[in-house]
């Protein structure tokens, strides 16, 4: 019933998809749609069709487009990052479940979760350089600061694999713990953090060898990272525990814990740094966390199984800053 109301509302608003700045885009993975939520009113203003099983999104290196990836229809729909207008469709990107650009913008990598392969493209023109089949549900990815290596977690086989980007050869494969998911290369380029969804911890790997060199207890179902923006703190969603941990990566300790029920998953932060928006997969909602109070202050109904989230803003990505590109901030399972 809600669907009809939203469609009617969209029709009343006219056919244009352009929306207000700081509106929020949410991918409804089981509704084949994306929602636009107005940040100010915290209301869903429209819901638009989108391929099939859209899960994740990523901002292009120039910061002008956000690519919404549909895993079953093999396409990327590009929205203008400032007003949400659809600009183009990139086709024939097979099962783009997880996706990301290398910090130098030269490489584009996708993890095909359902089809068990990792695709490495030359970003210019999306020319496929190599497709590597890896059993075990490739799920999350991150890059080193120098754009020489991409690290991919294999959720079902408890492994992480590192690829040399210029040659697309495997550098190492390491078994590191149960159901590795979120991957984050820290700006120092010396510590690779992996969230263990099958456990309640984040492990630190040596990016050169894959050896586990540290462990931080977080919450059950540790899953996905997102930068607070100060280069030191990262948020981490804990899907089973229903919390978000704020990790101090300098001291490797938990600075704060926020209760976010309903299988919290992907996150984005407002341009003013005041709010963290996080999808609540099981509640069909997106939660708004006030970062001054460090608590959920609103929860907005959207479509079924909301996954990727992106807040429209003029400076979506500061090109060349590895801290944003390396965080895989919009690319999570």
């Amino acid at each position: 019933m809600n669907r009809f109301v939203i469609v009617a509302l969209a029709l009343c608003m006219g056919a244009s998809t352009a929306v207000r700045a700081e509106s929020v885009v949410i991918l409804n993975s089981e509704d084949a749609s994306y929602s636009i939520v107005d940040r100010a009113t915290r209301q869903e203003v429209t819901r638009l069709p989108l391929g099939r099983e859209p899960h994740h999104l990523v901002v292009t290196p120039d910061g002008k487009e956000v690519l919404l990836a549909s895993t079953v229809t093999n396409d990327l729909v590009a929205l203008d990052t400032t007003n949400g207008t659809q600009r183009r469709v990139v086709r024939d990107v097979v099962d783009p479940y997880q996706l990301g650009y290398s910090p130098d913008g030269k490489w584009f990598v996708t993890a095909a979760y359902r089809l068990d392969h990792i695709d490495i493209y030359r970003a210019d023109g999306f020319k496929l350089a190599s497709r590597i089949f890896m059993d075990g549900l490739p799920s999350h990815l991150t890059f080193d600061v120098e754009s020489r290596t991409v690290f991919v977690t294999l959720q079902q086989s408890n492994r992480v694999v590192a690829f040399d980007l210029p040659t697309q050869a495997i550098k190492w494969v390491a078994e590191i713990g149960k159901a590795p998911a979120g991957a984050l290369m820290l700006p120092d380029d010396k510590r690779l953090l992996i969230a263990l969804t099958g456990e309640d911890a984040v492990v630190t790997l040596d990016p050169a060898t894959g050896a586990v060199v540290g462990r931080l207890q977080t919450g059950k179902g540790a899953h996905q990272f997102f930068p607070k923006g100060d280069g030191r703190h990262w948020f981490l969603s804990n899907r089973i525990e229903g919390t978000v941990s704020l990790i101090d990566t300098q001291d490797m300790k938990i600075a704060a814990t926020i209760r976010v029920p309903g299988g919290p998953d992907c996150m984005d932060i407002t341009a003013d740094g005041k709010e963290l928006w996080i999808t609540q997969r099981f509640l069909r909602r997106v939660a708004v966390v006030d970062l001054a109070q460090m608590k959920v202050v609103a929860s907005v109904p959207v479509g079924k199984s909301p996954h990727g989230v992106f807040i429209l803003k003029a400076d979506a990505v500061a090109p060349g800053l590895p801290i944003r590109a390396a965080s895989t901030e919009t690319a999570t399972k």
Partner: protein
Amino acid sequence: MSGLLEVWIGVQNWIFETLVSPALFHFGLMSWFEPAFNAVEFFMLGVVQIAVIALGMRLLERRWTLDRAGDAGLIGVDRVYTALNKLGVIPLIVFIVAYPVTTEIERQVRVWGVTPPRLEHMLPWLYDHALASFLLYFALYDFAAYWVHRAQHRLSWWWALHSLHHSQRQVTVWTDDRNHIVDDLLVTLVLVIFAQFVGVQPDDYVLILMVGRLIESWSHANVDQGFGWLIVGPRFHRLHHALASADERHIHDHNFAPVFPIWDILFGTAIYDRKARSTGVADKSIDADNGRGWVVQQVTVFGRFLRALLPRGERSRFSRS
């Protein structure tokens, strides 16, 4: 968001967070996190369906019973089938077996560069008409189910399985789920692959199953009621379960459609009349299913299936009757 939907999602989330996700976490099954959440919804929908059958359909059936001569004791096993199916036990087993097969098919097809279509891409108007979109997918799904049902009757090895469904002499609102587990598996495999091919969305698929199975439960009701050419009702479907006679040797090779009779009308298999007929199968070895429990039925019918796979000349050597 409507209050009812809020309650529904809240209950689903509570069951999942309290019971299911801790178990998945404990047993290292986090790869099944999202499917398990959907399985909880499937279970809840099953509870609703059982309530509708037991509290709604059954009351109507008792009020307007058509055939009062049958043995009510035969119905008990059908309630077991209904509970096992609606509450997800059989579907879980079927899922475990079918999932690798459907996934591998999808993988091969997509590696060849074929992407599953979606009707909305051909008819963008459907994007703005959710009800029309749902009905179109429902009709397509029912079209496929019609042909699967014809195959169940046409192929001797498949009939060996499906005949369990027809062997019930006392057809009631509980009869719809009375199927051999291998029969359930085969039907699911074909229809899931079909649904993927035409682009049925997961949410619509669940709704199609929910609405379709309720209509099918009612179409087995022991009452004389019909919906004409629009929807399959008891009068239409009871004829499909009719006991063959010398005059009507192939009576059950009619009225195959699960939900929309239009397929039978279009393909010449529809019969509309109000003649009173008994139900069951005029074959002693199949009729022997009556009075047996769930386990014995599953075992003996599987034997029937295996014998049907043998060359015709070999079957009599292994015949039990």
